[in-house]
């Protein structure tokens, strides 16, 4: 009887203890970190699953085990698609990138890739457009006082024009002539932008910079007249970019950049990236190189005969030149 009583007491103790303990356990609040720890565990599961995946199939048995190659193929395809999407997104996003932007290097890389994919004629045009872009960026950099960019942008524009010239030299006369005209336009446009910027300087600095600029133009004209030029005056046009681009190196201008300088440059260089000749706004000094290019190139190149013919209205084919260019040719 005593033993039975003792076992009953023990059972009661156990039951009472179990009830008390379960109450205590139930009152223990759930973890606030359960969701995080669960995610962490499932990520480990994914990794372990990958590690436990069967080893790559040897080349001998690949043909027989095409079913296993399908997931691998999908993996490669997805990776390639992801790379393509990222590259395209970056390319699109970088189109309007300006110097100093993180995407600017992407833009330049995309430009280089695009150039490498073009034929010779398209490459000449693309190089000239690229030079024009550099001009716009030069204006942007100038307006924001990004002096460290100025030289490299001007040099790049110069290189683009030089390369365009090199590429054009192997083209037919018509294409080469067209390319040279476009190059001349770019130089003229740039000089116009520089002169407009100079107008916004204080009087003392303006005169100083104006003299310096005139001297630069005069030197270039002298070089052209001395017969140092290549076909179409390209070699003179290219250096003409650099002095204008390096204008901040001129002490007078570098020290005296007015507040409204930014606006004047951005209006000319940024808001009009494509060249729209404004004949009425050009000063006599600016007009001179245009006449000179046409006239002198007419002496040395037959393409100018075609342009003259076009200007007279009896050209067999009319390349896409603007009205002002035709007037200039006249």
């Amino acid at each position, binding site marked *: 009887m005593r033993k039975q009583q003792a076992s009953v007491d023990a059972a009661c103790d156990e039951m009472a203890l179990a009830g008390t*303990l379960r109450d205590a356990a139930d009152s*223990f609040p759930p973890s606030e970190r359960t969701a995080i720890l669960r995610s962490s565990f499932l990520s480990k599961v994914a990794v372990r699953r990958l590690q436990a995946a069967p080893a790559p199939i040897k080349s001998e048995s690949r043909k027989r085990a095409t079913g296993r190659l399908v997931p691998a193929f999908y993996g490669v395809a997805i990776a390639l698609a992801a790379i393509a999407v990222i590259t395209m997104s970056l390319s699109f996003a970088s189109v309007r990138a300006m110097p100093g932007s993180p995407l600017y290097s992407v833009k330049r890389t995309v430009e280089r890739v695009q150039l490498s994919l073009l034929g010779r004629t398209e490459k000449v045009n693309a190089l000239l457009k690229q030079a024009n872009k550099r001009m716009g960026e030069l204006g942007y950099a100038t307006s924001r006082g990004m002096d460290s960019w100025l030289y490299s942008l001007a040099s790049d524009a110069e290189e683009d024009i030089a390369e365009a010239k090199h590429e054009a030299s192997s083209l037919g006369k018509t294409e080469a002539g067209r390319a040279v005209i476009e190059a001349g336009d770019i130089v003229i446009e740039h000089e116009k932008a520089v002169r407009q910027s100079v107008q916004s300087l204080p009087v003392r600095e303006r005169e100083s910079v104006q003299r310096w600029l005139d001297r630069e133009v005069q030197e270039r004209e002298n070089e052209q007249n001395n017969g140092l030029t290549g076909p179409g005056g390209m070699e003179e046009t290219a250096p003409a970019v650099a002095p204008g681009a390096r204008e901040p190196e001129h002490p007078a201008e570098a020290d005296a950049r007015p507040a409204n300088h930014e606006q004047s440059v951005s209006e000319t260089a940024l808001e009009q990236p494509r060249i729209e000749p404004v004949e009425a706004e050009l000063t006599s000094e600016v007009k001179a190189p245009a006449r000179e290019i046409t006239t002198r190139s007419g002496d040395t190149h037959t393409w100018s005969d075609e342009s003259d013919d076009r200007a007279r209205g009896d050209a067999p084919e009319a390349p896409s030149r603007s009205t002002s260019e035709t007037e200039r040719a006249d």
Partner: protein
Amino acid sequence: MADFDPLDIASRARAYDPEALAALFDAFFEKIRRFAYFHTGDAHLADDLASEVFSQALESIGKFTDRGGTIGPWLFGIARNVVAAHFRSTGARPTVPLDETARAPDSDCPEERALLKLSHEELYQALLALPDEQRTIVVLRFIEGYDVKTVARVLDKRPGAVRTQQHRAIMSLRKQFAGKEEEGHDEETASFG
């Protein structure tokens, strides 16, 4: 939980089936965490230890052989080792009797609520005062509801040895609760007097 089939889950978990392993986590994480808490008295540490238990389980699930719904005890076996390894590495023993996260059960009667809350506190203290093995036996037997054979398998002991340890644990707890009940009764009498 109603759909939880230990045999099915175990076989799928061995093949690293994410759904099965997620179900395993959902079914046992809180239990393992509670087990760790009763051994350490620290809810945050219990989270970490429970997470470690599942990491180790994942590493060795391939070697697990199910002998009829034994995946739960297998996890508790890992938990026991993890807790022991924690104490070995830190050199610390559980000294915090109660974590702030312990809640008092809801009750309409204030006196009853105070008494119940106190008894829960005493329960935690009593559990932490038990030797490791007895504490494990108490938790697995009375909180998780495993039978003696299963607990013996977790502890790698004979069922008779488990019963002996269980009896000692109950006696120890009874003694502690009796002392606390007397203290509580004295306090109650003094407050009414």
